[in-house]
């Protein structure tokens, strides 16, 4: 029987500091919203409503805030703000609420929307109760911050494709999501931070803890590189 020899050399030297896919700064992504919306301690209604405790909130329901009739009616008809509805709204506000007062062109990039939603998630009462599915998947406050050297590791996409064989038994490579979250197209720093949080058991999902447990830093970086390279269909 042929013996199969595997050589495995890790060459990380000289790459530290060469950060690729600069860490998405979720607060920075929200900056463009700040002229109208306040969030955090002492936030008040401005041009638009304050955004504390947004997740689970009925649309058009903050007392004293200015809303269009369409927004109030949508809320009365059952619209609540979740990761999914926020993602739709932020992509094209007028498509969801045709005469909304929010005159904003929308965020075409799923990454930008994910960053804004992830940022807002941290101002809801119990972020841990809000699903981690994209687009809320983020470096949330309960994920331990990673050493920048780990975030800087360049993943090998081809190795990542092999390792991803384990992922795509559940997570669809097309980005489709029906009970198992999509992991396609995530910013690499978010992906890497999430996987490390499963590996060090600070995230709770048992299947993901198990999957992450044996992965080393380079393997996590390779998976992140591979899934970043895929497109949603």
């Amino acid at each position: 029987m042929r013996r199969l020899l595997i050589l495995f050399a890790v060459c990380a030297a000289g790459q530290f500091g060469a950060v690729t896919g600069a860490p998405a700064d979720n607060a920075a992504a929200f900056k463009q919203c700040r002229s109208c919306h306040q969030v955090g301690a002492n936030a008040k209604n401005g041009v638009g409503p304050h955004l504390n405790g947004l997740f689970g909130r009925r649309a058009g329901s903050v007392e004293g805030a200015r809303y269009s009739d369409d927004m109030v009616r949508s809320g009365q008809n059952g619209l609540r703000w979740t990761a999914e509805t926020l993602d739709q709204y932020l992509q094209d506000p007028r498509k969801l609420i045709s005469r909304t007062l929010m005159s904003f062109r929308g965020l075409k990039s799923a990454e930008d929307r994910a960053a804004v939603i992830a940022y807002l998630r941290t101002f809801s009462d119990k972020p841990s109760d809000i699903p981690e599915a994209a687009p809320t998947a983020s470096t949330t406050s309960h994920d331990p911050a990673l050493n920048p050297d780990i975030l800087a590791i360049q993943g090998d996409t081809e190795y990542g494709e092999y390792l991803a064989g384990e992922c795509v038994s559940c997570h669809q490579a097309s980005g489709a999501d029906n009970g198992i979250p999509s992991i396609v197209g995530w910013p690499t720093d978010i992906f890497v931070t999430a996987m490390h949080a499963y590996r060090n058991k600070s995230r709770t999902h048992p299947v993901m803890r198990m999957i992450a447990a044996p992965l080393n830093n380079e393997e996590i970086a390779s998976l992140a590189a591979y899934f970043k390279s895929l497109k949603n269909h």
Partner: protein
Amino acid sequence: MTISRRTFGLGALALTGAAVAPSIIAAATRPNVVVIGGGAGGGTAARYLAKAAKGDINVTLIEPTRTYYTCFFSNLYLGGFREFQSIGHSYGTLASEYGINVVHDWATAIDRSKKTVRLASGADVAYDRLVVSPGIDFKYETVPGYGITSANKMPHAWKAGSQTQLLKAQVENMREGGTFVMVAPPNPYRCPPGPYERISMVAYTLKQKNPKAKIIVLDPKEKFSKQPLFQEGWAKHYPGMVEWLPASITGKIEMVNAETMEIKAGGETFKADVANVIPGQRAGEIAMSAGLANQSGYCPIVPATMQSQMDENIYLVGDSTIAGDMPKSGFSANSQAKIAAMAIRASLTGSKLFPARFANTCWSLIADNDGVKVGAKYEATAEKIAKTEGFISKTGEDAQLRKVTYEESIGWYDGITKDIFG
């Protein structure tokens, strides 16, 4: 990070046409991989080979059925949670998008010295590497009195399809207050939690349509997969309906009689209105007749590659293998097939060979929105595929977590069937 690239295979090519330019040699000698069996193992192996090789390897998939019904989730059809069509999958995408030559025929024999597969239609198909993924066949002798001709009256429903439809019809039409008897299989068998998920789904149906009915499980084993979870669930959802009787209580099965619907065990006779008899199992017949199995009835493999220990040109995946600590499941077969595909490609084209890693998770549904799961990760050691990490759902979990677990299983079904059939 860099990973060394294996470059071999050129030596072999040089022997066949030393004077010709390398690119032409490559085209003229494009290797042939034949896959026997289009289930979770074979479908995945064919798809991953074709996907990664991008035309450098000819892939032929031999599968007799036009529509493959997955055993996983067939219990959910019995419980009324899935439509029958939703567990059926055709091979059109593998043919049209991946260029796989899908041949609907039975592989009846393997000539290992000539490296050919004989089809029921009479043709021989040549291979350079062969993937054998035939699933299981039954050892009828483990249940005296049971055989192919009894399967109409006493369905096994352990290969999904018309048998599953038959069992569902029998359960739904059972007389009021009747008795459903399952003869559970001895180890090792396909889908360890499967018989007990089936009991749960039959109980779910009977509770609604026939609440005075009884369920008896005659089990040659003293314990089973997820036992505390199932027994807790049966007591909670179906109190007084399910009786599980291991051999230490009833004695072993002495005789079943499909005409009288009687099952004798330990001197006692159980009269069934519906009987689900699941015999002991072994590797699919073609693996046995090709000499790929050992005396256990299953096929020994090289853990790092899924290569047969009997023939270096043959790879085995799925339920027919001796896969160490891995259970026989669709998820396991899918996981093993990716390792086999990688190893075959490396041996034929010199592509990278990475360390083998395997995973499995088995979800089971106990009642509406009451899902549980068990899973583990594995690596290849010199001796076997060895478990490294694992988890299992806990008794007493709250309803919300069980609901999420069930929803996760639905997402998994979508994911894995796309991973198998494209």
